[in-house]
């Protein structure tokens, strides 16, 4: 129990003009651009998105075309990243694979985010027993360590990229719910919410027009970082043979089949491994940068 309420000290008048506490896009963008790491992260992601979109144009070969005469060629002029054990061009496969790996990442986060955000908003806004029930359920989901929940789901639904997406998404639901609930609680107690309530706004208006836009920053940050985790988890599941199925060029699958050549033709596993690591790195630094940009306290 806090007996004394912290009284706001008089606020700097000039500060309002000098340092916008809450950023709309413009000021956010400028802060963001100042954060070099984040820009690099963003560029990496853009680069991958570019690759994913233009894979058919960029790829020198067909990703699934088997040519057993050309197998296990080390990186060379014709095959920049070499060929795999079936003579497929690794570069082409990685280019196409970006669609799958990023697709899984985004789709899983979209799926987890949708449910997580909805539940979090409801729990945070309505509170009381609804909050208790929803958050206890989230606790239960969180009680499954790491990717075990995803593993259990995939074991039940069977291995496929879609099931992996669902499983990895399910595993992000409670994380989103928690963050959204926390931010909702925080925003809900802000005076403008009370102001709009005392104008007679409906709950839907308040939640979607006044709360949601103001908690987007933690959601976006979390979303970005979750994409990274989702890509890693999906690759892990594929590595265990529970994810994408051949001849798919999902990177985890490529890595998984490449690990047999780790000692003889390491490039088969190295390049997809690097592709994953680099993309995940991109999302991670982008997410970090976003967090810094959104969080006024992080400003130096």
């Amino acid at each position, binding site marked *: 129990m806090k007996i*004394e309420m912290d009284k706001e*000290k008089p606020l700097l008048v000039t500060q309002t003009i000098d340092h916008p506490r809450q950023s709309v896009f413009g000021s956010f963008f400028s802060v963001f651009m100042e954060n070099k790491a984040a820009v690099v992260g963003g560029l990496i992601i853009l680069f991958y998105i570019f690759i994913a979109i233009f894979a058919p144009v960029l790829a020198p070969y067909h990703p699934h075309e088997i040519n057993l005469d050309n197998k296990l060629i080390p990186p060379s002029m014709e095959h920049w990243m070499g060929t795999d054990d079936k003579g497929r061009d690794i570069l082409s496969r990685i280019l196409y694979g970006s669609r799958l790996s990023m697709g899984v990442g985004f789709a899983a986060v979209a799926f987890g985010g949708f449910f997580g955000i909805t539940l979090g908003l409801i729990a945070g806004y309505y509170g009381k027993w609804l909050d208790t029930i929803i958050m206890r359920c989230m606790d239960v989901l969180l009680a499954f360590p790491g990717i075990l929940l995803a593993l259990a789901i995939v074991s039940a639904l069977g291995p496929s990229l879609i099931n992996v997406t669902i499983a990895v998404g399910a595993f992000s639901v409670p994380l989103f719910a928690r963050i959204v609930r926390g931010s909702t609680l925080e925003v809900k107690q802000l005076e403008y919410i009370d102001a709009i309530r005392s104008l007679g706004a409906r709950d839907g208006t308040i939640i979607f027009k006044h709360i949601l836009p103001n908690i987007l920053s933690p959601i976006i940050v979390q979303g970005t970082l979750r994409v990274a985790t989702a890509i890693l988890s999906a690759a892990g599941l594929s590595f265990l043979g529970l994810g994408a199925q051949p001849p798919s060029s999902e990177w985890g699958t490529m890595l998984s089949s490449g690990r047999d050549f780790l000692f003889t033709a390491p490039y088969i596993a190295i390049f997809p491994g690097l592709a994953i690591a680099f993309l995940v790195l991109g999302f991670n630094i982008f997410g970090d940068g976003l967090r810094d940009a959104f969080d006024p306290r992080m400003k130096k």
Partner: protein
Amino acid sequence: MEPRETILEVKNLKTYFHTKRGISKAVDGIDFSLKKGETLGIVGESGCGKSITSLSILRLIPTPPGKIEGGQVLFKGRDLVTLSDSEMRKIRGNEISMIFQEPMTSLNPVIPVGEQIAEAIRLHQKMNKKEARAKAIDMLKLVGIPSPEKRAKQEPFQLSGGMRQRVMIAMALSCNPEVLIADEPTTALDVTIQAQILELIKDLQAKLGMGVIMITHDLGVVAETCNKVAVMYAGNIVEYAATQNLFDEPKHPYTRGLLASLPKIDEDKEELYTIEGSVPSSYSMPEGCRFASRCPFAEAMCHQKQPELLEHQDGSKVRCWMYSNEWTGEKRQEEVFS
């Protein structure tokens, strides 16, 4: 009043913040001095540079981005600005100590308060752990905390705001400093508690004889506790005078405006005076007088050149062209502020 010796003298102190958005001249050339046993008030609106001034004295400005760009802080003749870090540490908490505005956050939440006081004592006095603890308990007693032995073992969250502020005071005074800087020590407290704390500081000052710099935005607090007042505006001191003088005969249009815009507990007024406009940004200070844009008397010269802090015949100092010989306009303050 017997002439007392000056222990602290600030000369032309400048503290700037170098940020990506430019240079913020938070404190831009201020001068004042403090005598033993005297209380100097620094008042001003939010953001005018009061806290930065006090932090600059103890060299506690976050660096980067902040930096003391010039001037001197003479403490018993030594310039603190040029001391080495370790020499500076010997002064902090020992000869000059400080209490802060937020009693809720200014104490370490995970260390028992007694230990926090004892730490200061052991840093500066040759005492062992036990003696220091005993002294800490004495200090708690001195600042009027009931059952100090018990309280010493508690952590800050177990104390109320008023009590924490007392702990802060105990800590600050534990080494008998010669100067106590109190940065808005009561702003966060309720009036009844504020009254207790102000009374306590006054008592202790009488008992221990230190010089006090009382930073506040509340002119009431100044009137009640200070001998001298410096009124700050946008990084400058605009008026510097004995308290009685200042309230009896405020000179700077800003000071006058401030006093006039204050609702008073002991009088009824139909309408309050208002100072229009707002403080210029600390990143882009105007060339001339910083108050010119809001000043009802401003003439062309006010916008062109910044006035000096000029000494008035009654001993107070004002930074206003109106009191200089070059002033050509009318002096019609009385009609405006009445």
